[in-house]
């Protein structure tokens, strides 16, 4: 992979990680809070923590190991994109920690 292609991947990776994390959290909430009540809240929290750790790792990978070469601008895009999405993943998961259940 060329340095430029690596940088493009580094820009896209945090976004894809956030999307997967958002879908996972939404699915967990739906599984827990809809009429079918497939899983209980502690299971939701435990699964969400695992999903969040994985997503954060993928996002921060672009921050701590922004690929060198090709373009300083794209390196900056990967760095800041990684940070924004890491923050967004934490925001996705925050409600699960702050609330003790589905909340009605």
């Amino acid at each position, binding site marked *: 992979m060329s340095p430029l292609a690596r940088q493009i991947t580094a820009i896209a990776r945090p*976004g894809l990680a956030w999307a997967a994390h958002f879908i996972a959290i*939404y699915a967990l909430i739906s599984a827990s809070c809809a009429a079918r009540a497939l899983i209980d809240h502690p299971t939701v929290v435990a699964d969400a923590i695992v999903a969040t750790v994985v997503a954060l790792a993928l996002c921060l990978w672009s921050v701590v190991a922004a690929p060198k070469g090709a373009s300083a601008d794209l390196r900056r895009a990967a760095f800041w*994109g990684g940070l924004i999405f890491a923050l967004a993943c934490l925001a996705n998961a925050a*409600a699960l920690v702050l609330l003790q259940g589905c909340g009605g």
Partner: protein
Amino acid sequence: MTVAETPPDYSGAHKGEDKTFEGVWDTPKGLRVLSSVSHRVVGRRFIYTGFAFFLIAGFLALLVRTQLIVPGNTFLDLETYNQVFTMHGTLMMFLFAIPILEGFAVYLIPLMLGARDLIFPRLGQFGYYCYLFGGIIVLSSFLFDAAPDGGWFMYVPLSTQAHTPGLSADFWLIGITFAEIASVTAAVELITAILCARAPGMSLTKMPIFAWYILITAFMIAIGFPPLIIGSILLEAERLLGLPFFDPTLGGDPLLWQHLFWLFGHPEVYIIFLPAAGMVATMLPTFVGKPLFGYGFAVAAVVSMGFISFGLWAHHMFATGLPILSLSLFSAASTMVTVPTGIQIFCLIATLASGRPRLTVPMLFILGFLSIFVIGGLTGVMLASVPFNWQAHDSYFVVAHLHYVLIGGMVFPLIGAFYYWAPHFTGRMMSERLGRWVFGLMFVGFNVTFLLMHITGLRGMPRRVATYPEGLGWDRLNMLSSIGSYILAAGIVLFVYDFFRSRRHGPIAPRNPWGAGTLEWLYPPVAPGFNFHAIPPVHSREPLWDQPDLLEAEAHEVEGVMHGLRDGRRETVGCDPVSGAPLYILRLPHPTWVPMIAALGMALLFGATLASAYWLSGVGAVIALAAFAVWAWEPSDSGVTRDAGMGHDLPVNVVDRRSHMHVALVGTMLVLMALFASLVFGLLYLWNIRPDAAAAVARPEALTAGLGGLCGLGVALAGQMTRRAALADRFGITTVLSLLTAALAIAAAGLLGLSLGPVDPWVSALGATLWAIVAFTGLVLFALVFWALFNAARRTARRVGPGQSMPDFNLATLAKGAGLMVVVAAALFVAGAYGGVG
């Protein structure tokens, strides 16, 4: 210039046709202009048609404001009022905002990126006519006294047959779905054009920022529109066929419509905002005289916004009784999206601060955009908060917010863009003096209209009411808002006058009249139909600033690749999607009626369905299919090599993953996967929230579903083997494998259908959704069968030469996508069979 190989007999030009370079690119004259496929002709049509819809929708808005000017007004009756505000929203959101921005993108992207045209010009023409005919269908509802009146969001159960009998909702569902084809085709076209047709040296890093904005927007359209398309089809199926997708008495749920609608509807706000912000980020550096501050920040912000905007849809549903945990998730995402938005705004402000801006008319509109959009953004943060949202829900506060975001974020940049790029359309400058009046009237009128609506909303006035009693503290505010709307309208009227006046009396625009840095200003306006004689290599994001030789020489003398005529064909350079290095020569189609005929066939299909003349719908479908076949039945030029100049010996087309055809197919697969995912979402949603109803649904047959899944795997495998055989130029085996792919696809569709034999789609929403999944998968498999048989027929008819394996190469990609859908559908059916649907 040398030619590395003797051109084949077929060069694309008809016998006796003008083969000069200019002649090849000339726009047809007279009525034949309707057959033009040039991005500039098609782009202008999108822009002008979109603006016409804007004027109609604006007129409807004035009717609304006139009705509300005093309490107890009887200017419009209640039914007409409902129709007027519904059509205002519908026209603005579907037929103005997105199409006009796509029009600008279609027009500007090739010029900015150094291409002679978009890569799929016929797709552009087809999309335009779908948009035009779809828009006419929607508008014609007024003629039949059947204008939609259920709001631009068509919520169920209000829009179901029981509550909206007659054709009004059908006009909306069918017309808008038809018009949306244009958005999706333009998205695929723009993704491919941006990734595959750029000037030599224009890596992704050196792309103008506008291209990044459009690239992300196009991906968002590809993923964001399918949920609405699926929702519209399901609702129309419920209205037309009685399938109970949204009927709670049969296990359906009205909220499923809201989920599907807002899965599209919220990203749409960003789909509208991003291109306009891209225009601002393009115009601003010109007037500041400095490059955009923080290109990398802006790219990060645009990419982030593209993703996060898909996580906000339920903030339109805060008042529907969703669990608090869900509300918190969507509230968090709604708040988070302000971070990339803020970064973009700060990039623009920092650019503004980096030089001494020239206060031209486009610059005034940029300043208007910044001030208005920021206020809209701030009220957006307020609405992201669940308690405040509950308080302000469905009040005029929300009306004020959305207009601050959409008019500030899109209309102000758009009018600024008209002033900026008008020389491209007319060859003349618009008036600075009148432009300042236009800005003044619009800015004052807008703020008088909508700033006050925040207060009207906080005082409790609900949206969409046709009138109100006096004495509630709303009278004066509404009076002032209505007066403001007339001032705003006066600004728009003055703008239209200025545009038409400048066509005849405006000063002739010089070359690069604003001193911009991007390539669209290389030629004096109006640039020639071929965009570039030679496509110059670029070394920076502002080539006209950093490469003085480009403007020192006459435009037609600028050095570059592809200079002059090659083979009497329309040609441009295809590039590596990442590095921008020239890879191949792209041959482009000449003017043709075929896409228009295909769109007419589609219009017949949709229009006749509306009129319940189903035999005529069939005729329309046949016409469209035949037109698509003619469209595809052209000789392939692959396998020829040419000297493109500047040391580049380039083949015509490449047969690998970097090819424009393959990139476009991947874009199309993205759309198809999003459509399929929307159906799967609907299935899982209904299964999850209505276990009682799901338990009553008959079980699918596991064995046939499993066999169908195996056939799906076979489809993917056979498609891949077809690709390999074609790449090895093994003609006979490729044909056999194509036929095998088709046979397996037919078997897969049949088995999936058989597995649902026990499931009655008319007695449960879940059953109807299972059948919808089969119908959609069957449609994709039908396309695959059509394609495979088509390829086999072309080979049998000796229309394919050695090295011309692109159609088979792409068949494999479609086969893998279709196979995946079959396997997922089969897995769901088997799970339903063994676990019980309930």
